[in-house]
């Protein structure tokens, strides 16, 4: 059974994917640097040391010196000012990159053709079958499978916009311009908590994404995101 090669990813998808990967790693790790400056999260408008935290790293009386270790932060040493510089620069790049991705993907049909599942695909029966084949580590390569599509859609249309909106709500300037954001999210400290939790969901996505690439054939998958070409079994689903 000769494998044959299909053209999987458009040049736009490939370039934006890697630019996106760089930006996401930087904003995540500089975000952990910023989090380290006050590793406690609250719910509501206010929250500081004597208030009750909903999540904290380290004990209340001795908050962790560094909640996240050196290898997880940018810069590696404790540097809130530096972390903020990295975070906001790459957040801006990410905004432009994402806007471009959305524009191109709607225009060239990537969203409709590759990402939106068909009615048949979102039947419980089909989803159960896909889940079962995932558990047996059998993946179809020719098209995105439904779980994969739903994961991508969730990141693009739910998690990424949530990151942006919760991030903006932490800005005292934006809060003055758009105070309704505070009502939407329940306050600045709630926004900060949601920003952190959503970031953790994105980390979860990245972990699963990389594991899937490795399980599905890392060389073939990596090449497809560089040259656009993916080897698939000739009669493979």
């Amino acid at each position, binding site marked *: 059974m000769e494998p044959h090669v299909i053209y999987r990813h458009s040049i736009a998808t490939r370039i934006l994917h890697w630019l996106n990967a760089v930006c996401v790693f930087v904003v995540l790790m500089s975000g952990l640097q910023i989090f380290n400056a006050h590793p406690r999260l609250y719910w509501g408008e206010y929250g500081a040391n004597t208030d009750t935290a909903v999540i904290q790293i380290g004990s209340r009386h001795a908050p962790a010196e560094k909640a996240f270790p050196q290898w997880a932060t940018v810069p590696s040493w404790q540097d*809130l000012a530096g972390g903020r510089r990295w975070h906001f620069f790459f957040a801006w790049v990410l905004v432009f990159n994402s806007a471009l991705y959305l524009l191109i993907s709607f225009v060239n049909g990537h969203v409709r053709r590759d990402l939106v599942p068909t009615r048949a695909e979102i039947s419980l029966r089909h989803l159960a079958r896909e889940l079962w084949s995932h558990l047996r580590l059998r993946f179809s390569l020719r098209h995105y499978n439904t779980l994969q599509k739903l994961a991508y859609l969730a990141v693009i249309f739910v998690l990424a916009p949530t990151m942006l909106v919760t991030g903006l709500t932490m800005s005292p300037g*934006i809060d003055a311009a758009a105070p309704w954001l505070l009502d939407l999210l329940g306050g600045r400290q709630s926004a900060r908590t949601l920003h952190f939790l959503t970031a953790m969901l994105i980390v979860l996505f990245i972990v699963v994404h990389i594991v899937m690439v490795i399980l599905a054939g890392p060389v073939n998958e990596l090449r497809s995101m560089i040259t656009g070409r993916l080897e698939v079994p000739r009669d493979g689903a």
Partner: protein
Amino acid sequence: MTSRILTRRQMLLRGSSVLGGLLLAGCDRLTNAPAFRRVLESAETLTYRSQRLALGSGALAREFRESQLSPVFRSNGTSFPESDQYVRWLEGQFADWRLEVGGLVAKPLSLSLAALRAMPSRTQITRHDCVEGWSAIGKWTGVPLSSVLKLAQVLPHARYVVFHCADSLGGSNADTYYESVDLLDAFHPQTLLAYELNGKSLPVQNGAPLRLRVERQLGYKQAKYIVGIDVVADLRGIRGGKGGFWEDQGYEWYAGI
């Protein structure tokens, strides 16, 4: 066959951890490279311009109800300025303290605390957001900075208002705290020279006798222990040249985010 796949997988894992380490070391080196630092800092201009656009001239920071006050308003940075001068002022209940207003003004001023308290005041309950991430809600009473600036008559080529403080975070006198805002924030109706917190004279740990409230920016802009106001055309000649104590350490001058 199995062993070959495993080897390849191990190679990938090892390769990616080496690559990750190199990338991180690269980020660290870039952080210390002045040219790259300037690239990162360009984001501040973009943020400043777009927020000014979004804010228009007069958007107000949200004001809260009494029931929403933080039970404890946290103090940060200096909690007691250690200079002999400050201790003398404190012992005399700030009767000898003066706020010196100068620089690009037609009428330099020297105002006592009583004179400031005699001016029309504004009270507002607002949220204080520290750059570290925490927030506290407090009730501030003070003189709108615009009233003082109008009294002093700001000259046409003025661009910034600089606040000089009595405390020194670095320990030596050369390191006294200072801050600055542009005229748009200086004349904003919620920008106060506050002398009361939660209905009482400003506690020492929160900046007695006078501190700045510039409500659409972060906590480090809210200079405490103010002793002097200087109206200037340019920030570059002052101290580290970046417009504030923390700005000279690498923090953004525009702290609206």
